[in-house]
């Protein structure tokens, strides 16, 4: 049930009035005083009943409304536990560093996050890190206003409490990250960034998935490249922090000649030149060197997959969708070219049976889930991760990389609008559940 919050403007005595039913099961309120929380703000109030209130209304005195920064334009869920009436949810979407980053265009795109607003209610607030006032526990931002007149952008500017939970879509500095993490009691996701090397360190420890990620070393010199080539026949070097295909080289070796390949360019280098090349490359950027994975190819084009892993109202990991990409012939990466739904890719292109397609799909999801849980066990809070996955010739699943800020629009590349909406709304479901509110 959703509640309207009324304010008694002539009362400044920290009071909350509730309909009689509200005291009964499941709440069982029998104290004279309760706490009322809204986002991260909390006040103490004297509780009483009022016969004039509808069963879905409560009334607070003006001082309480002010102290909580209550927004009265929307309806809320009310939860009662541990002597606290919680009004909410207040969900934050941290989408910018500066206040100016929150443009009309960005707000328009953010509307996809609000598709299921009617199931959740409360406040969905878009804000920037500049808009956060830690001292007073408030943020400046834009809340979704479902009652807004049509044709108008339904976001209202205002000041709100720091949210119950925050979906963070930008990279934050350590200070702000830790600050928000502690204020929200770790209800901020994806809270922390990890680079390719940290990923390897975390995941390779676990025996059940360590053979589903390519063997990785930090690139300190050509010796590391040699080590990988001796072991695996060839090697890839990648910037430790890069995304997509930027800065990736494939290095082969024949006798004492090295072949460096980047996209479609290749150059032959002697050992001395190669050494120099590597030393130059790692001068101002950290790199890793990795075991190559021979992806399954069809007509010389290899295929890889984006597995979208998200948490939803269950607070558990699940797969929202899998998109497959086919690379251009001879290209070492496949971040360009044809995209297909997983099922079409495996059945249509790989000519696998329905049953095998299903088994591979489950296996892929299972491995991604295990990795998600390893990442969770670091104590950070993740809820929205994009896995770059390939199948090798034996149809073994390899996870090449995990993206912390995945493109939500990937399903649109294959025309799957329904999955796109699911990708957009799952983090909101998760955020509501994190804050202790219900979606279903």
């Amino acid at each position, binding site marked *: 049930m959703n509640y309207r919050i009324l304010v008694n403007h002539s009362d400044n005595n920290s009071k909350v009035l509730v309909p009689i039913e509200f005291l009964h099961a499941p709440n069982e309120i029998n104290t004279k005083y309760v706490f009322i929380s809204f986002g991260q703000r909390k006040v103490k109030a004297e509780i009483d009943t009022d016969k004039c209130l509808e069963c879905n209304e409560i009334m607070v005195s003006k001082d309480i409304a002010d102290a909580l920064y209550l927004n009265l334009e929307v309806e809320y869920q009310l939860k009662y536990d541990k002597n606290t009436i919680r009004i909410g949810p207040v969900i934050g979407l941290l989408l910018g560093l500066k206040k100016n980053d929150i443009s009309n265009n960005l707000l328009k795109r953010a509307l996809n996050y609000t598709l299921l607003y009617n199931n959740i209610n409360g406040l969905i607030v878009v804000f920037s890190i500049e808009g956060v006032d830690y001292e007073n526990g408030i943020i400046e931002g834009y809340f979704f206003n479902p009652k807004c007149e049509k044709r108008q952008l339904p976001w209202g500017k205002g000041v709100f409490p720091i949210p119950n939970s925050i979906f963070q879509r930008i990279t934050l500095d350590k200070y702000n990250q830790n600050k928000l993490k502690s204020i929200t009691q770790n209800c901020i996701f994806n809270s922390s960034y990890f680079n390719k090397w940290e990923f390897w360190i975390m995941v390779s420890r676990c025996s059940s998935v360590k053979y589903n990620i390519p063997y990785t070393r930090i690139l300190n010199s050509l010796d590391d490249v040699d080590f990988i080539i001796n072991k695996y026949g060839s090697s890839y070097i990648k910037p430790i922090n890069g995304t997509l295909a930027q800065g990736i080289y494939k290095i082969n070796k024949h006798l004492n000649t090295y072949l460096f390949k980047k996209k479609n360019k290749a150059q032959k280098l002697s050992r001395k030149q190669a050494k120099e090349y590597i030393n130059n490359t790692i001068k101002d950027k950290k790199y890793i060197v990795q075991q190559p994975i021979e992806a399954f190819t069809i007509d010389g084009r290899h295929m890889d997959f984006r597995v979208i892993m998200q948490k939803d109202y269950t607070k558990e990991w699940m797969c929202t969708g899998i998109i497959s990409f086919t690379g251009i012939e001879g290209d070492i990466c496949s971040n360009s070219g044809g995209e297909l739904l997983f099922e079409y890719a495996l059945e249509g292109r790989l000519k696998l049976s329905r049953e095998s397609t299903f088994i591979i799909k489950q296996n892929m999801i299972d491995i991604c889930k295990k990795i998600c849980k390893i990442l969770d066990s670091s104590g950070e809070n993740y809820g929205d991760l994009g896995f770059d996955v390939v199948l090798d010739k034996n149809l073994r699943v390899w996870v090449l990389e995990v993206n912390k800020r995945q493109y939500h629009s990937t399903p649109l590349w294959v025309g799957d609008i329904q999955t796109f909406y699911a990708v957009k709304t799952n983090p909101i479901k998760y955020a509501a559940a994190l804050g202790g509110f219900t979606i*279903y």
Partner: protein
Amino acid sequence: MLNEQIKISPYKKRLSTIIIDKKLAEELNISNKKRAFVSFGAKKAFVDVEFPLGGLSNEVFLSTDILTSLRIPEYLTYEIRIDKNEIKIGPCIGILISNNRYENIKKRYIKSFHSSVLDYKGILGAIIIFSLDRVDASNQIIEGYCYNPIKDNWEAGIFPYPLAIYKRIGISKKWENHFLSVIGDGLFNNYYPNKCEVYSWLKDEKIISSHIPDSAIYKSWNDIEYMLTKYKSIYVKPIWGMKGIGVVKISAADNDIIFNYRENSENKEKVVKNLKSASENFFAPNRYIIQQSIELINNKGSIVDLRCVLQKDGTQNWICNAIIARLGAHGSVVSNVSNGGEAKTAIDFFREDMLLSEKDAFILKEKIINYCMEICSLLDKYGLNLGVLGLDIGIDKEGKLWLIEINSRSPNPAIVLRANDILSYYNILSAPLYYGKSIAGFKA
């Protein structure tokens, strides 16, 4: 810690002993144990514990006496979990398929379970199909067929009581209580509410009550007359009916009363002069329920409802695994596909037939899921152990949602096949095993 997968091998040199590699023991946090008990299904046995160095970390040795008394098949891959002094090997999941036809398991049922175990790698342990006539209650063992993933077949054998039993048939109270005493509340779907119970339970629930059609038990023809005066159009359905069999729509038009129903896959219409004698002819007292007829959206003369497949997963959360629109046969009073209708995914129906935009289709789908979740959590609160539900939801011409029916007695997943959505079909088939795994003590 991640769930450890292990193989079990026999150890002949000692009695009552389990041998776990030191590394695995450390990961399981039991490396200081000297004694423990091992369990498989409902069987348990005390063991001495040894942790040698340098073995294979995924191989666990059990002395042959324990292996035999716990009846652990050696051809399976297991998970191992620790709960205080218990070393759980499993899962051990049962599918109770028949009361008294053990022979039929091999002949008839095994084939139909082939697709349910496609996802065996995610479930592991023993999946056993059995029937009541080969349950040995005094020794607490069952005879049944266990899936062997290596040979991809089902092997006959004797097993302990599984800790989770997916019940596909009705069983007596005596059996129910027997299983309860031995394995606990591990029997699901343990209750099949009939149409009357569903109505009487939900009619007082704030959020749901305005979304269920007004209903009454048929005791005499006066009940039909009363409901007909109230609603002009009503349904009379067998309380225990399935697949739309025996459903009659009664409408009052001018001075006539019309009975519409399906017979031999055809639509029948009968103008009734004497409501009393017609009612007594058609319906037996206390065996039928009278329901207010809802003006559901229809598609070119077919009535449409949505079969929502709700299942609990390995984390014991309800998940909606499919919503299928069922378009009844033209002019039919029921939408059941088995009664001549067709099916497509709800999203396709919303887009193609209701002409909704992608966005509105998504929002409507989520609204329906939302509503189903309310019902599922109520059924949980009522104390039923359900893992699989088919909820039939109708949409009326104002867009309001109605609960038409709850199916907990093996809701037929083949419905999704009609809608050409085979991957979710496999998902639906394996979901009860995932739920079973979690209630057998191997929660994801």
